[in-house]
Each structure stands twice: as structure tokens, then as C-alpha cells.
């Protein structure tokens, strides 16, 4: 008896669901019904990622804040994880006095490779080194021990937002490319097809530029840059006899009087 009734119950449930669907469609206003139709029928209104708008720019800062609050923009993550998601480009420029420039340059290059980095450029008394960002502080400290540091400049630029914006722009442009490709396949008038193809070409070039910018930014975040200039120190002259000429003004030559 129960088994006989089962299909009847199931069929009734299905009918009710269909009826509910029709009810929902009727309950929506005219605008909502048009949107639903467009979503169902066209490839234009696909679910797309949040795009930057004038009123509500989606930034990583706000996204991270929202993420920690767990308000639906993403899975809730702790503040430490959010902080570590920041992208920093860290650079350093050092001027170091050394006894032997050539030897110091070799040592500096060895320091870089020891930390998993490499020499980007070595010209005369200057080297530009790239080291993994995680070893940046250690590398700067280690390089400073090669001689007397007379000048040190350390910069850190937060490019988290810029990186996120690049990613968003890429995503949006790729989505536009897909939509245009779909339009192409529909078969349009020749004039329309040409316009779409031209737009596709332009977008492809833009995407390539943005991808290159993203790669460069990523590389600079992953590998910090340390520029080191080596200056040879003057050794203290040994005291030896020297001729003392009877021209007192000769003794007033030199930096101590000039820059006084």
C-alpha cells in the first residue's frame, strides 16, 4: 500500500514545485522578469566578478576587512593571514667604503647567491642584486658587514591594491573577450563582425600589456632589489719625511680648509 502511494506523493511534490516556480515568476515585477529572461537567454549577463565602480571600488583592503568580518565577500580569514597577503616591493641602496672594490663586489655577489638570489648588474664599482623578499633584511645586514656603510636607503612600497586592481582589470577584460567571442559565433552582419574583431584585437593587446605588468610587479615583489656602490677607503698615510717648502699657503690646501 505504501509503495503504491509513493509515486503519487512524488508526483504531487513535483507538481507543487512547478507551481511554485510559476508563482515566483508571476510574483516578480516586470523588470525582474526581463532580467531573468536575459540571464537565461543571452550570454551577456553571466555571473561576473565584482568590477570596480565609481561608487564602490572593490579594494583588497576592503576585501580583506570584509573577509575578516566574514560578510560574504569571501571565506572569513584571520587578520594575520590578511596582513601576510599584502604585496610589498622592498628595495635598498647602500654605499659602502671598502679596502678593495673588486674583492667587495665578488663577496657581495656571493652573498646574493647564498640567499638564493642573483646579480642583475655589475658595472665598475656598483652591483645590483636581487634576493628573495623573505631574505631581504638578512641580505642587507650581511652586505653592510662588507665595509663601512656611509649611506643606506631602504624603501618599501605597498602594491597590494595596485596588484589587485590589475587582477580585476584582467579578469574583466577576459570576460569581455569571452562575451565578444560568443557574439561572433552568433553570426552577425559583416559590419558588426568587423567591429567585434577589431575590439577583440584591441582587448587582446591590452590583456597582454596587463599580464606583462602583472608579471613584472609579481617579480619585483618576489625578488627584492639591493643596489650597492663600493667606494675605496683611503688608507692612512705612513708618516715619512717630506719636503717642507717655505710656502705656508700650501698647508691650507685641502678639504679641511675648503669645506670648513
Amino acid at each position: 500500500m505504501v509503495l503504491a502511494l509513493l509515486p503519487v506523493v512524488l508526483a504531487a511534490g513535483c507538481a507543487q514545485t512547478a507551481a511554485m516556480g510559476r508563482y515566483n515568476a508571476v510574483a516578480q515585477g516586470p523588470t525582474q522578469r526581463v532580467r531573468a529572461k536575459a540571464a537565461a537567454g543571452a550570454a551577456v549577463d553571466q555571473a561576473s566578478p565584482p568590477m570596480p565602480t565609481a561608487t564602490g571600488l572593490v579594494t583588497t583592503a576592503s576585501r580583506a576587512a570584509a573577509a575578516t568580518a566574514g560578510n560574504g565577500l569571501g571565506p572569513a580569514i584571520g587578520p594575520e593571514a590578511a596582513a601576510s597577503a599584502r604585496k610589498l616591493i622592498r628595495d635598498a641602496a647602500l654605499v659602502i667604503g671598502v679596502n678593495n672594490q673588486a674583492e667587495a663586489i665578488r663577496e657581495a655577489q656571493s652573498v646574493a647567491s647564498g640567499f638564493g638570489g642573483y646579480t642583475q648588474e655589475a658595472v665598475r664599482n656598483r652591483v645590483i642584486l636581487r634576493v628573495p623578499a623573505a631574505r631581504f633584511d638578512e641580505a642587507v645586514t650581511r652586505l653592510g658587514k662588507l665595509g663601512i656603510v656611509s649611506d643606506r636607503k631602504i624603501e618599501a612600497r605597498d602594491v597590494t591594491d595596485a596588484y589587485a586592481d590589475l587582477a580585476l582589470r584582467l579578469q574583466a577584460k577576459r570576460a569581455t573577450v569571452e562575451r565578444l567571442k560568443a557574439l561572433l559565433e552568433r553570426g552577425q552582419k559583416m559590419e558588426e563582425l568587423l567591429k567585434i574583431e577589431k575590439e577583440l584585437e584591441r582587448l587582446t593587446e591590452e590583456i597582454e600589456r596587463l599580464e606583462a605588468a602583472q608579471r613584472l610587479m609579481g617579480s619585483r615583489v618576489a625578488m627584492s632589489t639591493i643596489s650597492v656602490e663600493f667606494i675605496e677607503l683611503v688608507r692612512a698615510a705612513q708618516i715619512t719625511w717630506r719636503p717642507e717648502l717655505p710656502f705656508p699657503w700650501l698647508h691650507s690646501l685641502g678639504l679641511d680648509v675648503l669645506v670648513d
Partner: protein
Amino acid sequence: MKRYALVALVLATASVVAGCYPTTLRLPESYVRLEDAGSDYTDRVVSADGVTIGLRRRQAAQDGSLAFWAKAIRNQLTGGKGYSVKEESDIKSTDGEVGRRMDFTSSVKGNPFAYAVAVWVHAGQVIVAEAGGPTQAFAADAEEIGQSLSAVKVRG
């Protein structure tokens, strides 16, 4: 009386002649001229980064040649002050007199400094122009410094 008058005339002429010799430097852009050049200089100009250029003129021994004074200056700086010669070359003043330019490296309180001195000899006078400052700032202004040294007027 006549003798005193003659001495006075000679002294007056000498001072007039000395006053005719140029005593100022070409002022590079972003440099200022010191109101008081100091007792050793006739003119001194300085940049905000501490690079200083100075000019002086001295009566010289009558037979002193350019080679003599260049060597005397080099000995004084290397032997007396421990400077290291970086390079040496001829330099022409703005009025065509050939002199000698010597560049040195040194340090002040442990900081690397650059120093250049240009010397000319003319009409019994030694004209010396010096430039010095922190190595980086000196290198950044190298062109300006060179132009200032070459712009020295040696003849009256």
C-alpha cells in the same frame, strides 16, 4: 722724498694690477656664493650637498713653473694629508692658459670625499682652484665642477 714717492707709486701700481686680476668663480646652478670667502680664498661657492669650490691667487717664486707648483701641491696633499691621486690631466682656463688638474680621494670622519685641485701659473702668480665634497655629491655635480674650474680666468 723721491724714493718714498717711487715706493708708493710701485705699491699703488701693484695693488691696482692685483685688483685687475679676476678673483671670482663661475657660479654653478644650485650653488651659492659665500659672502665671506675666508682668508685663504678670493671666492668660494657651495652647494646644498656640501660640495665647495674655492679660488685663490698667490704671488709665486719668479722661476716657479707649472710643473714645479703642480708637484709641490701633489706632494703636500699626498704626503702631508694622505690623499690618494685618482687622476691627473691638463686643464685650460677660460682665457686659454694651460694648467694642471689633479683629482684625489680622501675621507672626512670616515666618509668618502672627493677633492680636485687645478693650478695655473701666470705672471709670477699661482692661481689655484679647488673643489671638494662627499664623493656621491661630487660625482653628481662633476660636470658643473669641471665647467667652473675651466671657467677660471687666469690672465688680467
